[in-house]
């Protein structure tokens, strides 16, 4: 009854709200008697507050309170984990120091809040914040990972342990070997929306929160723990979120502090952070140094890979990510070892940033693959094909689906790969050098637990509900399409409600997993409705009495006999005749045990053409093709947008993005959008996206895998490889800025 067909492109369901300015993000809500909060940050990277003078600030017009470690209202669940801390079990408390906002004079990182100032207008709070003056006893801030690489520790979390297949030094004996170091600087998510929160205590133990979170349920749980109140009394709303890219994957300490202060002052309280605070208080992609050793035989077969990564984390929390994982399963190779270390520095804690560690790791692995292909004088695609694997060599089990060969082929055709010359620096257009590069990306495909509710109304309209947040990928649009495919209700008769804890519980938006998780729940809930409708129709006396369920189809708000187009009943009629005002079905959905028999990954291939000015070292991405092998595409239009967004992010990662610290002060010097260069319009060419669009038979009933991460993973490597092809210069430290390519004339 369900046809497995490619889905048509549809407009984003929340598009009209977004283009008219009607979409309300957390800071757009206004509550009576609302006050404004401004954070004062530490000006040192390590030490103690010796004194803090808040008298002037307290006396400034409109000020309602100045909160420091000396007078911060208590947070009853202070020592409970405040939600969403880095994955895995937390380290033992005695091995690591604690950061609890405004709880002590101790400074653990630059920009750490030392005061939160509350006033009755934004201007007044901001001005009063400028009047708070602190003196410090300074200690040396250890912020430079390069200087502390030897202090790496094994994180001791499942998934972060050293990996070995075959021999660790298997690469050494290979006829052709390669050793290379790759560096990723600190990158900052920098969604366009500033972080913050609007908190309103609606009763002594009930709370309304307008949040910037990728998961309203996670924020609800975090606040329930922090304030030791019933989660049911906490209502969190994030219908619209102005981008997350990972920074909203946890509840940050300043959010909890705002909630505590709001309770203390007895007024709704709004915090909108400043852009510079976005660099220190809501995470970042960690500075990571990687070494790859690779060996291959003269036929281009890999013999060994050793991949080691060391990344920064905070002194107070061990952040980990899957930087080296791709190396374990991407290519057929008998000897593979990986090693992942973290160094605790006087820095604020990182958080997963789009593609997260996999994007960091893919830059190294896919650059190394290109370097090796060059050593072997092989076409980079050919080299990858010679080491292609149809089964997962890490877990010795099949992939649930993998169409990567087709992706290589279609992407190569689209970019014009046959115009590429294997000899670097051999193509010019006038004064500009031309080069082509490619890279592979991959990311786990998941199916998490999720719930959803579907309500078919007597007028034939359908409502879909889930607490999930749509941070921009088009979740609401995809859920609409899934419901439409099951029930045949016209798209314009489907309303989807999301981003609110009053709706059925959903996982946090992240890990490219939401269509799979929440989409499956919507599918299941709608399938329950369908079953009831079919039962009503075919029962004795029903409009389609005596028919078999598998003869029926649903389309255009009708239940009909597939082979007899005239024989049909409108869903609204079916409900009316059965005296139903609504069919209301919920589903808690999760994958079955059979998923464990497969390795489930999405794949991408990125192709770029670059132009490089040999005099100035300027690099421009002149063409980009991104191919996604991520199962059935539910919403082709929004999926393509995710892919082009990955290209824009990838261009930034490859060419422009770097948050720079002056290690003498442990402080950022470019913590703003003028000096931290995210790609602008002029950096991004027209982009071709290609969807393989073949359903995965295992992962979920829609056959859909995720694509948010693979859109970015690998892209920076493709650019670096293209730059090498254009110039003969290999840049292993991102970003590839003009100075790194300069050669004297």
């Amino acid at each position: 009854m369900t046809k497995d067909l490619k889905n048509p492109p549809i407009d984003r369901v929340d598009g009209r709200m977004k283009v008219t300015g009607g979409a309300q993000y957390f800071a757009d809500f206004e509550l009576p008697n609302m006050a404004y909060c401004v954070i004062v940050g530490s000006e040192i990277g390590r030490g103690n507050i010796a004194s803090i003078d808040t008298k002037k600030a307290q006396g400034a017009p409109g000020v309602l309170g100045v909160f420091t470690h000396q007078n911060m209202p208590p947070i009853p669940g202070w020592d409970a984990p405040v939600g969403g801390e880095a994955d895995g079990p937390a380290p033992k408390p005695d091995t690591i120091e604690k950061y609890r906002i405004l709880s002590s004079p101790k400074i653990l990182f630059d920009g750490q809040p030392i005061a939160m100032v509350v006033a009755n207008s934004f201007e007044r709070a901001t001005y009063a914040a400028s009047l708070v003056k602190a003196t410090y006893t300074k200690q040396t801030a250890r912020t430079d990972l390069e200087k502390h690489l030897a202090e790496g520790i094994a994180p001791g979390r499942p998934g972060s342990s050293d990996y070995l297949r075959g021999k660790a030094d298997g690469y050494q004996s290979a006829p052709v070997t390669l050793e290379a170091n790759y560096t990723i600087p600190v990158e900052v998510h920098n969604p366009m929306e500033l972080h913050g929160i609007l908190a309103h205590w609606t009763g002594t133990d009930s709370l309304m929160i307008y949040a910037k979170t990728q998961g309203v349920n996670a924020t609800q749980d975090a606040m329930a723990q922090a304030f030791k109140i019933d989660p049911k009394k906490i209502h969190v709303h994030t219908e619209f979120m102005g981008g997350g890219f990972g920074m909203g994957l946890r509840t940050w300490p300043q959010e909890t502090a705002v909630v505590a202060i709001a309770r203390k002052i007895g007024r709704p309280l709004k915090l909108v952070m400043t852009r510079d605070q976005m660099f220190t208080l809501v995470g970042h992609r960690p500075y990571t140094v990687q070494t790859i050793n690779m060996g291959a035989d003269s036929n281009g077969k890999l013999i060994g890979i050793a991949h080691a990564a060391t990344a920064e984390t905070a002194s107070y929390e061990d952040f980990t990510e899957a930087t080296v994982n791709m190396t374990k399963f991407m290519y057929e190779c008998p000897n593979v070892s990986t090693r992942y270390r973290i160094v605790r520095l006087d820095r604020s804690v990182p958080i997963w940033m789009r593609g997260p560690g996999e994007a960091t790791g893919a830059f190294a692995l896919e650059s190394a693959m290109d370097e090796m292909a060059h050593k072997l004088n092989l076409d980079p695609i050919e080299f990858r094909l010679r080491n292609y694997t149809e089964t997962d060599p890490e877990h010795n089990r099949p992939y649930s689906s993998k169409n990567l060969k087709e992706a290589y082929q279609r992407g190569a055709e689209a970019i014009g790969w046959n115009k590429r010359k294997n000899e670097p620096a051999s193509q010019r257009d006038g004064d500009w050098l031309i080069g082509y590069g490619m890279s592979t990306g991959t990311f786990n495909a998941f199916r998490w637990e999720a719930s959803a509710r579907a309500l078919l109304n007597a007028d034939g309209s359908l409502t879909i509900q889930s607490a999930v947040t749509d941070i921009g990928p088009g979740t609401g649009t995809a859920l609409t399409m899934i419901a439409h495919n099951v029930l045949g209700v016209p798209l314009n008769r489907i309303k989807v409600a999301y981003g609110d804890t009053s709706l059925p519980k959903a996982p946090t938006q992240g890990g490219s997993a939401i269509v799979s998780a929440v989409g499956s729940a919507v599918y299941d809930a709608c399938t329950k409705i369908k079953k009831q409708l079919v039962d009503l129709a075919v029962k004795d006396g029903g409009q389609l009495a005596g028919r078999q369920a598998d003869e029926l189809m649903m389309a255009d708000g009708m239940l009909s006999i597939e082979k007899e187009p005239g024989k049909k009943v409108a869903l609204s009629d079916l409900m009316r005749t059965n005296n139903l005002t609504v069919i209301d079905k919920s589903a808690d959905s999760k994958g079955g045990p059979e998923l464990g028999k497969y390795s489930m990954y999405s794949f991408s291939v990125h192709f770029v053409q670059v132009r490089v000015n040999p005099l100035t070292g300027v690099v421009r991405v002149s063409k980009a093709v991104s191919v996604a092998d991520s199962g059935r595409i539910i919403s082709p239009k929004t999926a393509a947008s995710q892919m082009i967004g990955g290209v824009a992010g990838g261009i930034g990662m490859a060419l422009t993005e770097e948050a720079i610290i002056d290690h003498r002060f442990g402080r950022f010097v470019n913590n703003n959008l003028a000096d931290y260069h995210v790609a602008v319009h002029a950096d991004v060419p027209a982009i071709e996206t290609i969807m393989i669009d073949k359903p995965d038979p295992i992962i979920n009933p829609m056959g859909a895998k995720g694509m948010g991460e693979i859109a970015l993973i690998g892209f920076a490597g493709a650019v670096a490889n293209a730059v090498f092809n254009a110039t003969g210069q290999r840049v292993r430290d991102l970003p590839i800025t003009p100075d790194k390519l300069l050669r004297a004339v």
Partner: protein
Amino acid sequence: MAEYEHLEDEFGNADSSRRNFLKQSSALAALALTPVAASAAIDNGLDEKMAAAFEQMPLQVDINGTMRKLSIEPRVTLLDLLREQLHLTGTKKGCDHGQCGACTVHVDGQRVNACLTLAMTTEGCKVTTIEGLGTLDQMHPMQEAFIKHDGFQCGYCTPGQIMSAVACIREGHANNPDEVREYMSGNICRCGAYANIVDAIMDVKQGGVRV
């Protein structure tokens, strides 16, 4: 006091409320009108409302076709005025320093960054925000084109992109995709919808609809 009488001869009438306040307030007349003095006044126990009165100035500005008569602190930016006082929250704050374009509005038909525009400098001007460009029922062609081409994801930079896009065409800077990319570079989209935004703008431009 003499100093301000002098100013009265020289200047326009923007100072009138303050001058009147000064004239009426013998307690404060001796104070220079400085922020330091204002906080001193608070320290001296004077009523905050009094301080507020002498911190606020009159502003008349046409916003989306409605003449507004306002009283604001001179330090208030056009962006914060729109968002926090006039509840026009379609205009977004992305950086507050003129580095992202999320706050783009039109002042007398010119696209500007509202975050770096003191509201007082818009006296007598016409301000147009996204709410004044089109509505849910009657969208501007550029708004339609953004939906058609999916020129956004999270939607946060979108009002600024659209206001900028309309101006880009009106200025005559939308003659080809490369020109659009250059003249739209003041509007950052972190979701990376650039390619679709350029398509939307070129579509409107080539459609020939008057924007």
